[in-house]
């Protein structure tokens, strides 16, 4: 990474307690009149050890922003910094390699993180315990349910020992019961491991359930609409009156005509 003043500033901010720093980031495709502006001049800060949700409807660029923070793509303008912290990413699907067993998948993550061979088996067992799936090492991804697959994917991400976790609608493909259980799991793991989480969702209830702060994004081009701090006590429940009320308010806010 070249050391432009913008990035220097970003690094300083992050070292000062910010988990993720996004400064004046724009992303567009194409040129001139054909240019498609996906993200426009975004500023976003996630403090360390906070749980922040990016909330918006499809097409608002929240997944694009996540990819930029993950380093899977580069911004057209602006800078992004995670202060040298290790970043893990979890997507909605295709997180597990079908030719490996559950244990094999997690072990590969450990191997790519340069964990020495003798330690790996114990760490795999440990990680499976953390996601409450002990003993599943020998099963293959297609032999377990969707919820279990996402938990294994989470174990795989945690195996990389990251302090920053990026999640792109990870529970979107799960049924409601499993999703609620996963909310409890991720909240617990976040607290236990003191992670910094940036979580993308289109579901206002999920955002209210999980986040310390919700950043609502608008579409075309993608930009930040509002930011709301949520101070409800933890551990939270989706069905409390105040949660439901705030969720409805947020939903109405983003449920504006499609552009």
């Amino acid at each position, binding site marked *: 990474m070249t050391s432009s003043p913008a990035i220097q500033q970003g690094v300083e901010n992050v070292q000062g307690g910010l988990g993720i720093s996004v400064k004046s980031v724009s992303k567009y495709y194409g040129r001139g009149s054909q240019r498609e502006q996906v993200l426009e001049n975004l500023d976003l800060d996630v403090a360390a050890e906070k749980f922040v949700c990016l909330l918006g409807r499809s097409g608002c660029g929240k997944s694009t922003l996540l990819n930029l923070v993950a380093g899977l793509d580069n911004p057209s303008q602006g800078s992004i910094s995670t202060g040298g912290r290790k970043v893990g990413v979890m997507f909605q699907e295709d997180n597990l390699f079908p030719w490996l067993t559950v244990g094999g998948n997690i072990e590969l993550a450990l191997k790519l993180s340069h964990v020495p061979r003798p330690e790996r088996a114990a760490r795999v067992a440990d990680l499976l315990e953390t996601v409450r799936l002990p003993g599943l090492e020998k099963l293959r991804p297609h*032999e377990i349910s969707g919820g279990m697959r996402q938990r294994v994917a989470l174990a795989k991400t945690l195996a990389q020992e990251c302090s920053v976790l990026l999640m792109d609608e990870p529970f979107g493909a799960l049924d409601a019961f499993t999703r609620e259980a996963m909310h409890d799991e991720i909240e617990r793991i976040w607290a236990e491991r003191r992670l910094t989480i940036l979580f993308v969702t289109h579901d206002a209830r999920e955002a209210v359930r999980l986040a310390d702060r919700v950043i609502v994004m608008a579409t075309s081009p993608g930009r930040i609409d509002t930011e709301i701090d949520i101070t409800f006590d933890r551990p939270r429940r989706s069905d409390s009156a105040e949660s439901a009320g705030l969720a409805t308010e947020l939903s109405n806010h983003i449920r504006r005509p499609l552009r």
Partner: protein
Amino acid sequence: MIKPGATPTSLDSPAPLDRQSTTKRRAGARRFIPPAMAVALVFVIWQGVYLSGWRPPYVLPAPLEVVERLIEMLGQEKFWLSLSITMGRAGIGFAVAVAVGTAVGLSVAHSRLLRSAIGSLITGMQTMPSIAWFPFAILIFGLGEQAILFVIVLGAAPSIANGLISGIDEIPRNLLRNAKSMAARGASLYWHIVLPAALPGYVAGLKQGWSFAWRSLMAGELLVIIASRPSLGASLQYSREFSDTPGLMAIMLVILIVGMAVDQVFTRITAGLLHRRGLGAARS
């Protein structure tokens, strides 16, 4: 009222695996019945054609005669020598074809320049009949082992290259994205993710390559007869010259069986690969 203490095993338990192994055992013995019946049917039709007198018996022998001849051949040393020489050529030729095809496939998959330069050439070569290569091969290498090897490789390598290329091309982008988010790069990405993901396509290419190799070899052995090296192809040629039709057909049976046997190996490997990844037809 829901009773406390009821363990919700169904919500979270994996598929009961014992069910699969019993169906496997049952299928083991019964698996041979359909092909055995197909073979029996062919024999019956053949016997019928023989009995009808459509062709004289010295041109079209009865199936039993051919089987007797085959059993007789199995006791002859010359047969086994021919078979081993043929199989040796097949093995070496296929091995070289795998090496060449894999190298070309990897290079083309990885390099956009190479792909546009020789991508369609590879497919073109796949469609070219191997026998058309022989005059050229014989001119260059003379009537020898090298000419045969040359044609086997040219016949099989394009299929192997193409199998690897499509195996790599068809990897879902999400899978690669996931790999990259795990900090897999370059050689490590290739070894741990790209090659395993491309394996089913590659094995399909190997299977096709084998059938082309076997066919090219048989054509070669008919055209390039080396006096000191008996082979299945040479035996075919001799049988024809001496009008030994039962012998001719017995050797054709051997050629067919060998080709099918190796093909079966690839089929099994593919089925195993797909089954472990949760793909392919369900076994039940």
